[in-house]
């Protein structure tokens, strides 16, 4: 475990120094602050604007960071050849992969925490009741799970693919994951008559991550509570999915030669 932690820590420290990621973080902060300015444009729905723009900014930029970071983690090590001295040690490929992933998660958490603090400050100035709302925190927790899953997909893919390919693939999974409902409807006889197509659509729907399930925007805006078991289920599904993805990544990575 300390091997995994050593790799995670180093990955985390290195990621914090990456200029690209820091610029993305800066954009996120500016975006959250800008939501306060935009909100005056819609008299009745100021809080909606702030919630929408800020939470979506955090999600969008975290998603960007997850993909940028995840896609370059292993390829960068290979390119810079730092991976040789590490894998020449008694470090299993699994430990290496886990360590890199964990380091990525720590980086994401740090970035989300920074963005979250700014968000909280903006909210508190507008309407305190939202800032200390349980639904808000549940939403943040689920968002963390969502980007962690996306990070896992990016890291697993980068185990064998180049950075550009991984980025495109990860974004593709993200967008199709959000369009899951389309696949579900295309798998029903009322929309599609061809059995083969329906089965394919159904299969895709079954295995794609259902990213919309991580979104608690509506109950937050409507001031409604979210059942705890729902949050629990989503977390479990995310953890299992991450496990599956990392297991596949591990297989790919252990076959890889350097």
């Amino acid at each position: 475990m300390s091997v995994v932690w050593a790799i995670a820590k180093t990955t985390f420290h290195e990621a914090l120094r990456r200029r690209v990621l820091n610029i993305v973080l800066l954009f996120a902060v500016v975006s959250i602050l800008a939501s306060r300015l935009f909100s005056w444009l819609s008299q009745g729905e100021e809080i909606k604007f702030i919630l929408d723009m800020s939470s979506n900014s955090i999600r969008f930029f975290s998603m960007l960071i997850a993909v940028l970071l995840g896609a370059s983690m292993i390829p960068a090590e290979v390119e810079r050849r730092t991976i040789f001295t590490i894998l020449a040690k008694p470090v299993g490929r699994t430990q290496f992969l886990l360590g890199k992933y964990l380091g990525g998660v720590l980086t994401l958490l740090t970035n989300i925490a920074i963005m979250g603090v700014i968000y909280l400050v903006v909210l508190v100035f507008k309407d305190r009741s939202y800032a200390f709302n349980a639904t808000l925190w549940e939403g943040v927790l689920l968002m963390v799970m969502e980007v962690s899953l996306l990070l896992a997909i990016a890291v697993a893919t980068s185990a064998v693919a180049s950075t550009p390919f991984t980025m495109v693939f990860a974004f593709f999974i993200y967008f199709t994951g959000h369009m899951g409902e389309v696949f579900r409807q295309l798998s029903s006889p009322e929309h599609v008559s061809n059995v083969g197509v329906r089965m394919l659509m159904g299969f895709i729907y079954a295995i794609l991550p259902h990213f919309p399930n991580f979104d608690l925007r509506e109950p937050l805006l409507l001031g409604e509570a979210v059942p705890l078991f729902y949050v629990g289920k989503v977390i479990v599904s995310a953890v299992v999915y991450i496990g599956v993805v990392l297991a596949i990544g591990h297989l790919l990575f252990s076959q890889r030669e350097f």
Partner: protein
Amino acid sequence: MRSRRLRIVVVVAALVMLIPLSYLQQSIDRDRFLYSLGEPLEYWRISQLNVQGITGVIIGAVMGGFRGVAADMLWLKCDEYFHTGNMQRLIPMAQTIVMLDPHFIDVWTVTGWHMAYNMFAEAQAMDDWEGQVRWFKMGIDWLMDGFQENPDSAEIAFNIGWTYYDRMDMYPEAVKWLTKTLRSEAPPEHTGRLLGHAYELMPDIERALEWYYRVLRVTPDDGTARGATITLKMRFAHAWRLVEEEKYDEAYQEVYSWLAAPHGDTPNRIPWHLIATIAEKQGKFELALKWWERSGNQYQLDELAQRRIHALRRQLGMPRWKREYPGWDAPAVIQE
């Protein structure tokens, strides 16, 4: 070799895990629907996404699950259309926005207001009665759709009620919708007073008084409510009681006496509505018609009077009514 076998076992196990995971995800999808945590974007709705004003960024936002922000951005664009009165662009855009974000209350209420008010007023200025009815109906239908998506929205219910009240003087419908808003935690201000006004003009004097008293219980220094209770009690409360006891002739006389007495200023619609309604209850439709016409001639915007006039004239086989403004100092009573 052992390590390779273990690796294969791990991966097979992981792939097998996709099966229960898939069931879990679908269970979560169902929970989301059951507990109204947010509807997924339906396939057929995407095919209805209106092309106007939709940029690639908006599409990307929609596909990436950023529907809220996409809706917000489109709403900002709508602001421009409001100021230029460009309904051709505004309505499809508003439809797209509520498709993305059905709980965006502002879009429902502001667009509905635009249809039932601004466009209605334009048709009214051109004396286009059919146009008025069309825009009114469109606005009401739009707001009703909004209420269906947001059954807890006091704001939308209030807007529907207000639109019925103010545009078409459809008091029973207005009352029904305004009452719905009272179920919410924070009903819009003045709802109580508005209900009082609606009942006054319906007319249902007793209920009107009831509502004004309720307003006074909550805000004892409400000038309008206080004034209204006094005038209603003094002038028409007794007459209304007679109506409820079906003593229509006595009720008619009482209201007539009040109207005939010198007051100094033109009476508002309440006594005319009241006396016309009593005449109808007496079965004296020609008489009732004259009273409705008195109110309709005096007040161009008395939609209730106009509707009763059109209905009674049809019933009596009389030609179409043409409004004749009698002047501000015409006698309050008619030639019977």
